[in-house]
């Protein structure tokens, strides 16, 4: 194994890790604000991919161009999901919460299959097509653009949460719901916002991925488990944690696949997951 290959793997891992980070940031916002694990999160990503794909297929708009619209669409979807389903299970036993979001996962996959058939789609000629060479290592431009996009969005989100009033209200609701309500913050509105932002993050990640990743109804399954691992490693509710953990997990996945073989990539990440759960369940920067 040459240094080149290792370097290539490392950097590939970071790039995909940034995408994982973005997906996980969405998941961790939802969990941080309302203690619900969204098993349907991968499907928000899937819808983001399809949104980008259809803008491309029907109106020849590159995924990066249609990204704001995809983001908005997913934000609205997240808010709708909250009001139609999640609102009713906030106080329900954990089993109900798990199964409600699980049901949503299956529902979304079924709808995607029904509406758009199970075929694999792809954006053939993205704006960012091409490769970039750094010495002897090569990178696809779409991947780099996606990674850069992920960093920007995560940063924007972090600024939103720490520098704006609404962001502060969201953090307050996450820290102590009752105290926030006593200060006049409408908890339901915060929850809806969390779902909207969470879905938008996953949707944006999907739109970024659409330039180089195949689009099909079950694509979310590839990301949901990894998103869990990232959120757990970073600490439930911590955006910074999700960011750094995403990069770590991306690197572990790619380098692990290099060492043990690509068929074991997911297994290695999951073993890491179990190790974290055993040693430090609250993750790197977690609160609980």
């Amino acid at each position, binding site marked *: 194994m040459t240094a080149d290959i290792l370097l290539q793997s490392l950097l590939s891992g970071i790039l995909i890790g940034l995408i994982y980070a973005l997906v996980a940031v969405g998941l961790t916002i939802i969990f941080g604000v309302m203690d619900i694990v969204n098993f349907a999160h991968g499907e928000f990503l899937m819808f983001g991919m399809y949104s980008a794909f259809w803008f491309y297929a029907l109106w020849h708009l590159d995924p990066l161009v249609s990204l704001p619209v995809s983001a908005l669409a997913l934000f609205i979807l997240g808010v709708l999901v909250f009001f139609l389903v999640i609102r009713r299970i906030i106080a329900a036993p954990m089993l109900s919460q798990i199964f409600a979001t699980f049901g949503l996962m299956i529902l979304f996959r079924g709808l995607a299959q029904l509406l758009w058939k199970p075929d694999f789609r792809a954006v053939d000629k993205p704006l960012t097509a091409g490769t970039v060479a750094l010495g002897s290592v090569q990178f696809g431009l779409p991947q780099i653009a996606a990674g850069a996009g992920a960093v920007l969005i995560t940063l924007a989100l972090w600024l939103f949460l720490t520098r704006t009033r609404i962001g502060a209200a969201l953090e307050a609701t996450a820290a102590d719901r009752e105290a926030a309500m006593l200060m006049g913050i409408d908890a339901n509105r915060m929850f809806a916002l969390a779902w909207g932002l969470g879905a938008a993050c996953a949707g944006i990640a999907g739109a970024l991925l659409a330039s180089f990743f195949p689009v099909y109804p079950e694509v979310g399954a590839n990301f949901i488990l990894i998103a869990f691992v990232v959120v757990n490693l970073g600490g439930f509710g911590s955006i910074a944690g999700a960011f750094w953990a995403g990069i770590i997990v991306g690197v572990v996945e790619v380098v692990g696949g290099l060492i043990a073989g690509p068929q074991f990539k997911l297994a290695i990440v*999951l073993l890491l997951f179990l190790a974290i759960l055993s040693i430090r369940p609250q993750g790197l920067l977690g609160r609980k």
Partner: protein
Amino acid sequence: MIRRAEPLALPAALALLAALLALPLWLRSPAHQNLAILMLMMAQLGVAWNILGGYAGQISLGHAAFSGIGAYTTTLLLMKAGISPWIGAPAGALAAAAAGLVIGWPCFRLSGHYFAMATIAVAEIIQIGFGNWDYAGAAVGLTLPIDRDGWTWLIFASKAPYYYLALGLLALTLLVAFAVERSFLGYYFRAIKDDPDAARSLGVGLARYKQVALALSSALSALGGSLYALKELYIDPPSVLSTGLSIKVALVAILGGVGTLFGPVIGAAILTGIEESTRTLLGGSGRGVDLVIYALLIISIAVYYPAGVLGWVGARLRRRAARPAAR
């Protein structure tokens, strides 16, 4: 609740038993017999899951790992060493229980969502493991030999013997669940589910009893997996180790009534019925549609009927019983 109906219970139960035993005689078509067998097998897996998930409240979403271990153990012992399933299946049960001990040790320290996610992760790892293990057929899977058949090998040409095997296994599983429910184990499991801190203050070792629940649950699930292998005569990771199967097993118990004895049986009957009718009505092209229906079912149970069918029935009976007292 059941006590009030007691005078009717015994004759009704006997009649039901007779009907169940005679079923293959009047349900002639292999497709219908197959459906009945599937229902029984799903019910059995659901009852097994329920011991850990319903009684002890530890929601496992990776239980296919245990039925899968049972299926693979029985199959491998049969194919590679010529060992009859009468020994292979119990061996599979032991293997699953042992796996449960290994899995439980780190996982039972976790609560709630964390535990559920850990079980998904474990099952996925096991599925990936088997999918890449050439000795066990890797992704291609294993096909059971049909040259040896009959009651020694538990491989049959017709469906009827499998029906009785499935019925017998379900009866055994229900018996174990019933015995657990009535013994101190049942009380301890419910205590752990309701309030782990209070249980500890009464000397109940949480890890120890969760492990007991898991050992029973995993062993029984493995027996179900072994039966699946013997019936289908072909196993591969997606058919016996998939997350989809894990979810279905949990769903069956939740649909019927988590924590009740017969809940999973009712849930299995309903779920299998729904799956079959959507499959026949909508066919292969409507694959998206049956997923949607399945999903809407799951969501509505989660939101409106978390106690499942038996829970809903129980609540209505309790309301009716409370009314005379209010007069």
